[in-house]
């Protein structure tokens, strides 16, 4: 029976500890645009997409994900856009994968993690 590990090395925890003592690196200056998908989600940086849209000549200055979000907003009860809440989500989305992706972006969070009878889940 093997009794003891001969060597114990860590990659993640050592790196995390090392990063704690590093000075914060200054990010290169760039235009930053944030979108907020719902009231509970953190702000998501969409800088790359925003800049790509601007440079492609489309000139709308808005990421396609945001456009689809606006279009499908009624599914979240927003009451505006181009879809009908009276029919099934599949009928609104059809076979268009972009639409389907946009619809799926309406992610709900916070459905786990509400129970805490102690400070730790440990046993």
């Amino acid at each position, binding site marked *: *029976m*093997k*009794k*003891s*590990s*001969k060597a*114990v*090395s*860590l*990659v*993640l*925890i*050592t790196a*995390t*500890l090392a990063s704690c003592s590093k000075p914060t690196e200054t990010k290169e200056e760039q235009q930053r645009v944030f979108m907020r998908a719902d009231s509970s989600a*953190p702000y998501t940086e969409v800088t790359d997409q925003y800049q790509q849209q601007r440079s492609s000549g489309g000139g709308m200055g808005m990421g396609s994900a945001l456009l689809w979000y606006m279009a499908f907003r009624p599914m979240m009860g927003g009451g505006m856009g181009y879809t009908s809440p009276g029919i099934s*989500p599949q009928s609104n989305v059809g076979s268009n994968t972009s639409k389907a992706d946009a*619809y*799926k*972006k*309406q*992610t*709900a*969070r*916070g*459905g*786990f*993690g*509400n*129970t*805490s*009878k*102690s*400070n*730790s*889940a*440990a*046993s």
Partner: protein
Amino acid sequence: MQLKYLTPQSNWQNRLEQNGFGYHTDENNIPYWVEEYYYSISEPLADEIYAATADLWDMCLQAVDHVITNKLYDQFQIPLFFHEHIERSWEKDELSIYGRFDFVYDTVHQQLKVLEFNADTPTSLYETGVVQWQWMNTYFGNSRDQFNSVHDRLIETWKEAKAHMKGSTLHFSCMRETLEDLTNIEYLRDCAIQAGINTKLIYIDDIGWDGETFTDLEDEMITDIFKLYPWEWLIYEPFALHIPSDMAQAQWIEPSWKMILSNKAILPILWELYPNHPLLLESYFDEPKGMQNFVKKPLLSREGANVTLYINNQVAEATKGDYGDEGYICQALANLPNQGKGYFIIGSWLIGQEPCGITFRESDKRITTDKSRFVPHIIE
């Protein structure tokens, strides 16, 4: 088994912190980690613990099969909507990584007895696999041994698990702002990375539901997820109904059949299946059935909460907490050893089906709680 002392380093707290162990002392400045003494155990005792752990694991698997075959879920207070998920995870033999049996070395019978099985969310893994090993290296170098191949077994087990993953990313999840849980889960993730697995950390309340599958904060579908969060909490939360209907059928680790083993209802089931087995303590549902010295435990109690200890049918000790509505079991009181520093129990780790390491936990009272101390050990 003997308690021995050494002269601790003056800056031992710094050593622990530099090794990523941030909760060696509690908020009241009371040490959780014991540096200056240890339990010296013999090689035969280490072998005895190894064999007991392996035997009990076999017995537990038989017991799970018995519970599922006979649909005894009501005795475990497991709701109807989740029975099928448990059965499916059992039939598919979904990945199970680890567990920790808590033993007492009964001083009267000179016999290991199992107190319970922490099968779903066991912690103190980092203390056992890393901190305890580094403590031995610091004070004894290579001159001593330890019952501790936890680190090797974790990496090896993740390597084996990689072939059984459903997707290419393994998510790890725990509650936020719990340093102990985060340390344990980051250690598990560390070992998974060393095993060549692509990983992501997501706090349990950040997990998303997009209408079809669970997702992370980058909207990546979750196909395999290790959670340090109890099943009995998960299944009563708003997203619980999505787990069985998840289009990706995400593989949750530990699997849902571990709900059966992490529930104290398994103790009377084991006693019924293996009556008078030397590793078991007499146990019954609800009533002591004539026992004079026994411990009454809620089915789902954690870290010693709501436990009542009876000696001669009188309450000798009791702890507070929020558990108990789910029902109780009564377990015969073991003769807890105490060598002057406290009552101690032995935690025995099973990783990837194999016993691989032990911990000593020590308490001022007979009931082991979250205030119990971690004491390292040496085989000599």
